[in-house]
């Protein structure tokens, strides 16, 4: 999943002002405001109506960038895609252990390199087409087409020859380690035993896509075709897309062709792209939403105090960090980057701004991932930082060009940026400007290296240090810093997979991570906690460290106590 767009802000707030202007913004904003206000009027709210009719109202953060599993990269997209599609293997919503998905069972060869998956006979696409092993071969072929611009292509690299194929060294897909032995048997050959491979299969970048639909609306490797639009999209998940109104909502309905349709309890899920954490929290309290993935930092204390069962705080495998564009002249010097990293007072940010139990981060990989506790020499040390900056040619910050922090529009990111801006000003005496952009524009700027310092978040796609560290490979689609170190690549791609023992493997990761932090193309800020607001009527909502919802398990049942709206 990845880019967390996390807490937000935007158009909704304009409702407070736009009444002075006659324009279209007004109409939308007023509508939103009315939606919020109407809940106070005593009429039935979304939650109680939804509880009766099995409709889950889900506050989903940002408008999804795309619903194409081979193009999307964000958390909001992830939540919708997992409702619409499914991989070979699922994860248990509590323990994250592998569970049968489209594959009923699988064999792993003794050397850990060959996986044989046995697919369900009754697997179907949402339009009723049979769904079989050939779909995977075609989908994975598509995902590896360079023209598609799949930023997650590297997720395939554990598969034999996938990297070579993606980089054009071989042109025959037959040589890539994926084969349909018959309609219901798929064999995957890996380069090395990869302990996290089964976890990868539950990631949307390895999800199958419906060939006929994609080819109907364009070429297989064409971006942005209409196949993901409402009425077109065909998936294999528990739900199917029934409506997608930009900036309004995405509605998915139960998929009758799903192999496990009998155990799906929800009839519908409505995803609302509401970016403003304050608005979304208000809507939640007014009973308009069953779920909100963000809680405004200043409200967490109040929820904790009254022991509100709606508040779910859980460890979250994700890191909030700043990317540095290492091609920008004043940021090319690693001493400057180190100095910036050393003058962020992370304790204060966690305690005074975030307030949700977040842990200050001194490494990119969250400590404790698969028993990995990386060592780090990064610490808050303004004096050493000033020395480094002076060595780099900016004594007392003199002559340091004005540099910009880019963040996607959200009050949460703004607060952190404002605090860091002031810390750099205070400790290094350098002027930093802030620039916010809307989510899609922001993603474009970051991907195009059209930024100087950029806010970022990375949420684990699977539980392994590799998931955080292989982001910064020279050609990693999510690197986006311009930083490249062949020695680092060698450690991640060659040394780690060939490690004999778990300890040795972690040791190699630690060496790579030390290298990364020494060069500091990225500045870790904090380790996420997932802060969710979940209406008590939502049952089977399980917290897990990937914060992955399992929609097929959830159901709605109003308890006597909370059947009324909590106004």
């Amino acid at each position, binding site marked *: 999943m990845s880019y967390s767009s996390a807490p937000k*802000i935007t158009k909704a707030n304009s409702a407070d002002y736009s009444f002075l202007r006659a324009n279209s913004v007004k109409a939308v904003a007023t509508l939103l405001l009315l939606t919020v206000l109407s809940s106070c009027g005593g009429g039935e709210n979304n939650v109680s109506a939804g509880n009766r009719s099995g409709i889950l109202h889900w506050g989903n953060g940002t408008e999804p960038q795309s619903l194409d599993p081979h193009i999307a990269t964000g958390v909001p997209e992830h939540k919708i895609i997992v409702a619409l599609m499914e991989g070979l293997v699922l994860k248990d919503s509590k323990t994250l252990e592998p569970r049968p998905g489209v594959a009923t069972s699988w064999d792993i060869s003794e050397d850990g390199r060959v996986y044989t998956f046995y697919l369900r006979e009754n697997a179907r696409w949402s339009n009723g087409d049979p769904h079989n092993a050939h779909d995977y071969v075609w989908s994975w072929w598509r995902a590896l087409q360079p023209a598609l611009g799949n930023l997650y292509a590297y997720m395939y690299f554990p598969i034999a020859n996938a990297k070579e194929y993606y980089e054009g060294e071989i042109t025959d897909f037959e040589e890539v380690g994926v084969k349909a032995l018959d309609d219901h048997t798929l064999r995957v050959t890996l380069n090395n035993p990869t302990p996290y491979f089964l976890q990868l299969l539950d990631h949307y970048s390895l999800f199958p896509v419906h060939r006929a639909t994609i080819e109907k609306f364009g070429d297989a490797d064409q971006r942005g075709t209409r196949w993901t639009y409402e009425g077109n999209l065909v998936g294999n998940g528990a739900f199917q897309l029934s409506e997608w109104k930009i900036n309004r909502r995405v509605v998915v309905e139960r998929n009758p062709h799903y192999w496990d349709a009998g155990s799906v309890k929800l009839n519908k899920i409505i995803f609302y792209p509401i970016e403003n954490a304050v608005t979304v929290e208000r809507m939640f309290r007014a009973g308009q939403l069953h779920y909100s993935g963000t809680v405004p930092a200043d409200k967490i204390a109040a929820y904790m105090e009254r022991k509100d069962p709606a508040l779910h705080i859980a460890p979250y495998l994700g890191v909030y960090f700043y990317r540095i564009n290492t091609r920008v002249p004043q940021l090319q010097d690693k001493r400057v980057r180190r100095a910036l990293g050393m003058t962020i007072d992370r304790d*204060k940010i966690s305690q005074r*701004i975030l307030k949700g139990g977040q842990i200050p981060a001194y490494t990119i990989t969250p400590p404790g991932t698969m028993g990995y506790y990386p060592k780090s020499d990064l610490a808050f040390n303004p004096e050493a930082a000033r020395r480094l900056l002076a060595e780099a040619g900016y004594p007392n910050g003199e002559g340091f060009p004005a540099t910009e922090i880019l963040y996607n529009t959200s009050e949460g990111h703004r607060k952190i940026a404002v605090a860091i801006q*002031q810390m750099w000003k205070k400790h290094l005496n350098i002027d930093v400007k802030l620039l916010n952009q809307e989510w899609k524009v922001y993603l474009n700027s970051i991907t195009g290296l059209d930024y100087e310092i950029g806010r970022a978040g990375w949420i684990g796609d699977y539980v392994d240090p590799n998931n955080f560290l292989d982001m910064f490979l020279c050609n990693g689609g999510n690197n986006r810093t311009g930083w490249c170190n062949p020695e680092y690549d060698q450690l991640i791609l060659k040394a780690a997979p060939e490690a004999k023992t778990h300890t040795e493997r972690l040791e190699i990761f630690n060496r790579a991570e030390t290298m990364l932090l020494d060069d500091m193309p990225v500045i870790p800020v904090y380790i996420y906690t997932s802060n969710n607001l979940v209406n008590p009527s939502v049952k089977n909502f399980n917290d897990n460290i990937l914060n992955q919802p399992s929609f097929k398990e959830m159901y709605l049942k109003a308890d006597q106590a909370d059947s009324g709206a909590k106004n």
Partner: protein
Amino acid sequence: MDQISLQQQEQGTSLWKDAWIKLSKNYLALFGLGILALLCVISILTPWIAPYGYEEQNLMLGATAPSLEHWLGTDIFGRDMLTRIMYGGRVSLTVGFIATAVALIIGVLWGAIAGFVGGRVDAVMMRIVDIMYALPFMIFIVLLMVVFGRNILLLFLAIGAVEWLTMARIVRSQVMSLRKQEFVEAAHSLGLSQWTIIRRHIIPNTLGPVIVYTTLTIPSVMLLEAFLSFLGLGIQPPQSSWGLLINYGVETMEEYPWLLIFPGITLSLTLFALNFLGDGLRDALDPRTSKD
């Protein structure tokens, strides 16, 4: 009667002097003027009289209610609210006045010319206004900002450049009704040029509605600025304006109400002051009211 004696007779009460006399009897308007003057003076002097730096943070302090050290409390970064409001006033008042001035100049000239010349010129000019109306103004401003870059002065101009439309329509309708009146015909027959007539006779007669509309425009552009800043197109933190302070205040109004109340009071006060003053000026400047 020759021209000189005619001028002498009229000398006693010029429009402006007359207006001032009337205005000084209107206490509400004077109060508004006083408040505005006070706010302007404070804004100008802010860098010297502000109790703290506007970006000076004290994270350990965090948001605190009003106290002796911080009269209006502090925000979540521990920044002094009084200071923030004072600095915010600089931005808000500047954007209010400059953008409104731009809107006023373009709008009045456009409307006066269209209304006075009439015919095909009027039709073309007003269709341009209609087209601009139809454009979503946000997109237009965003476009201007993207083309010319992010710069506060440009922001003011850009807002002004989209705010003049209503003004142009109001002025035009006024002018249409005025230009057929006898005193304008008299001016024509005296051989005055078109431009002189617009300047000397038409525009002063439209002042009433223009002033009222102006006083409404100022607060609306202040809020527009907040909205744009919010989208990342206006001013950026740590700078602030009243609109932005209110915007941030709304987010935490349940936990830290003072972050909303004080900027809110300041903006409302400005708004009231502008309206009182505007009302007073309209009464005072209307040349049609009798001189007594």
